[in-house]
């Protein structure tokens, strides 16, 4: 279990990295996504590492939608770019893709896209609501114990304990033309008085307070010239850094002006949560001022302040990790000119540059604990800081807080229960396939309309409807399929380059392969069985013996390696069993594959 978890998480880290890279548009675009009036149903055969039963996805245009089980008992709706999905699944996970292209009208394609968007939005908001409630409860618990501060998102981007910075003074000067000091001070007083009146109520939890504290901090950061917090900054690793060009300086100067203007607009806005956006906007402008001063890029770090190690990279060979650094660095170098364009910097793209720089710094740091799985393609820097305020301490206020805390806990429990009810993973009733089936029906409101749109029906309540390959067979046989397509796995593509007998024999053996490097997470096995059929049982027996041998060696080394080899041997033995019955699951995986390399399908 532990090994399976580690394998899954490592894949997630890889996915996070490759997600960044491909989103940056570095990878060669592969024109395999479906045409405008098509929907592609994708079947991904199993492999070790959380996907032994196979996987499914929907592809529309360049976008892929699929449902993942991340090991916490929930299913997650995931949206991806096709080139990234293909790279991860056919490359790093070494699994072929089978696609059934189904003809639909443009209107029906839009309905499916709307349905998938709705599912994603609903889940994102439900998860965000749960996080907000958790934060409410944590904050109220701290307050009930006598605390007088709460953690405020993005407040940690600036440092109130350091003296005012020159960068801040320059920006303040720019802002002065729009908002004078008197206006700013009266706004601070107004929000201070609102904070003093804020009651920690059940209906809003501490959100109202949080919003107001964020607003106050953003105003004070400007008024007092607080500098950027050191911990909020990330600089590009020297090997991939370069001084700012004149064009970049011009682009950054214009972008800083734009950010100051946006800050002024947010200041005038009545948007209740504008404080966070104001802090982020101001911090970005500060980072640009520092960049211009140092003549090299200083960016905000989107990695969460409290790193929660989810992936241990100890088992990833140093060579692979070095390549991750190289690859991320190369991507950053190529992305930079398109982001820092004199035509204008787009915030969403600038955010990608921040994310890339952050990822690069983490890989280059050599840390084995990497929180990159926390990073999304677009992740706003949101470093938190504990912000204090004056809280009423009379008996009545304490008693009210206790009561509200209980209500907040109950509300959190209710939200958790609703999430479990709606998104709990169930092998038979709610998995990556059943939810795809449901979404393709729900998009049309009724089954009759779905049948009409897709040419047939595949439902999750049919016998074995939860099994990926059964689902795919039904799609092919029932829906309006205009063509099917198979994209081979990375290893298969590599083998096709050298078809000599010697190479084929060598590449059949995992320990001898030039393409594949044996990894503990794949288990100990001798022969690949994914590209043979009639010989598979024989190979399976050989793998069984090989796994047994390693299991024995693992038992002997148990006192020294904490069971690492034992688990690998057991995995090797266990996944050999299906092969004896002609079923292949294990295919081997890769830590690194060149993005857009010659083996890209």
């Amino acid at each position, binding site marked *: 279990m532990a090994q399976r978890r580690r394998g899954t998480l490592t894949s997630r880290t890889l996915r996070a990295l490759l997600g960044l890279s491909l989103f940056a548009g570095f990878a060669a675009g592969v024109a395999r996504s479906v045409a405008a009036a098509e929907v592609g149903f994708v079947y991904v055969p199993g492999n070790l590492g959380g996907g032994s039963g196979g996987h499914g996805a929907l592809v529309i245009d360049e976008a892929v939608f699929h449902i993942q089980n991340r090991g916490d008992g929930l299913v997650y709706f995931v949206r991806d770019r096709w080139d990234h999905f293909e790279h991860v699944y056919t490359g790093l996970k070494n699994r072929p893709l089978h696609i059934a292209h189904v003809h639909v009208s443009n209107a029906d394609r839009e309905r499916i896209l709307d349905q998938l*968007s*709705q599912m994603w*939005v609903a889940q994102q908001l439900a998860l965000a609501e749960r996080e907000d409630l958790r934060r409410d409860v944590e904050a109220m618990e701290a307050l009930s114990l006598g605390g007088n501060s709460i953690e405020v998102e993005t407040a940690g981007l600036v440092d109130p304990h350091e003296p005012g910075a020159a960068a801040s003074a320059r920006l303040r000067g720019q802002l002065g033309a729009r908002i004078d000091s008197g206006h700013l001070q009266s706004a601070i007083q107004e929000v201070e008085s609102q904070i003093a009146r804020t009651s920690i109520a059940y209906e809003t939890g501490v959100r109202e307070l949080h919003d107001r504290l964020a607003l106050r901090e953003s105003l004070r950061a400007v008024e007092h010239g607080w500098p950027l917090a050191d911990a909020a900054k990330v600089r590009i690793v020297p090997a991939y850094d370069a001084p700012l060009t004149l064009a970049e300086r011009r682009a950054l100067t214009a972008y800083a002006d734009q950010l100051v203007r946006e800050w002024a607009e947010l200041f005038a806005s009545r948007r*209740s949560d504008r404080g966070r956006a104001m802090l982020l906007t101001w911090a970005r402008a500060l980072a640009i001022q520092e960049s211009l001063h140092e003549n090299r890029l200083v960016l905000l770090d989107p990695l969460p302040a409290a790193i929660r190690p989810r992936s241990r990279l100890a088992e990833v060979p140093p060579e692979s990790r070095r390549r991750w650094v190289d690859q991320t660095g190369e991507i950053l170098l190529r992305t930079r000119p398109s982001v820092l*364009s004199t035509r204008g910097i787009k915030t969403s793209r600038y955010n990608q540059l921040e994310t890339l720089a952050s990822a690069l710094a983490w890989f280059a740091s050599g840390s084995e604990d990497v929180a990159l799985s926390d990073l999304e393609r677009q992740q706003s820097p949101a470093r938190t800081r504990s912000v204090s305020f004056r809280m009423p301490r009379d008996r009545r206020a304490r008693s009210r807080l206790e009561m509200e805390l209980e209500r907040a806990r109950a509300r959190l429990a209710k939200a958790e229960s609703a999430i479990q009810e709606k998104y709990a993973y169930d092998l038979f009733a709610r998995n990556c396939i059943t939810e795809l089936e449901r979404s393709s029906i729900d998009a049309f409101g009724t089954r009759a309309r779905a049948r009409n749109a897709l040419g047939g029906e595949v439902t999750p309540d049919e016998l074995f409807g939860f099994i990926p390959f059964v689902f795919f067979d039904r799609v092919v046989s029932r829906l309006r399929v205009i063509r099917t397509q198979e994209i081979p796995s990375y290893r298969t593509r590599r083998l096709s380059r050298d078809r000599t007998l010697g190479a084929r024999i060598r590449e059949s053996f995992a320990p001898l392969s030039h393409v594949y490097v044996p990894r503990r997470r794949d288990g100990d096995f001798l022969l690949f069985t994914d590209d043979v059929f009639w010989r598979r049982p024989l190979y399976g027996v050989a793998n069984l013996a090989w796994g047994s041998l390693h299991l024995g060696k693992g038992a002997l080394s148990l006192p020294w390696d904490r069971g690492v080899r034992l688990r690998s041997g057991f995995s090797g033995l266990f996944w050999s069993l299906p092969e004896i019955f002609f079923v292949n699951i294990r295919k081997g995986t890769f830590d690194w594959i060149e993005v857009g390399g010659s083996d890209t399908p």
Partner: protein
Amino acid sequence: MRRSLFVGALCLVATLPSGCMLLVDALAVPSESASGSFTAIGGSLAGISLSLGSPPSGGGSTSDEKQSYSRDLRQYVGLFMASKGTRRDFERGVSRIAEAHGIAHWEAEPATAYAIGQGLAQAGVSAQQMSELGESLTSNEATAQQVLDGWRNVAEAR
């Protein structure tokens, strides 16, 4: 229930300081048909107009990214209309979606108002309700036009 939510929202609106270019001023127009959620959305549109004077944020964005943001927002408006949340809830939701698309200042994003209009149409907001909303936005004509354009884009295609 709907009426009480609407009245509650109006009370909230009434307490807001005057002098800002706020759509919410117009939401003081009573409407039997407007739901609390509709009111909350209307309130949030206020700030959008403040930013419309800004030039677009520059190049680099693909139409795919913008389409994806708009679609998510449309769907969110539909979900929100069914949930009967407050203006604060609505704004928080928009912020979440915008952040997922790398957008911090969503009020400055022209696609926001248009997508909200589309979402209102998808949620079944009537021409009468939209007309009231439009009338209430006399000081925010650009926003009103974008919302109405978005609404028409969906409503008239039906």
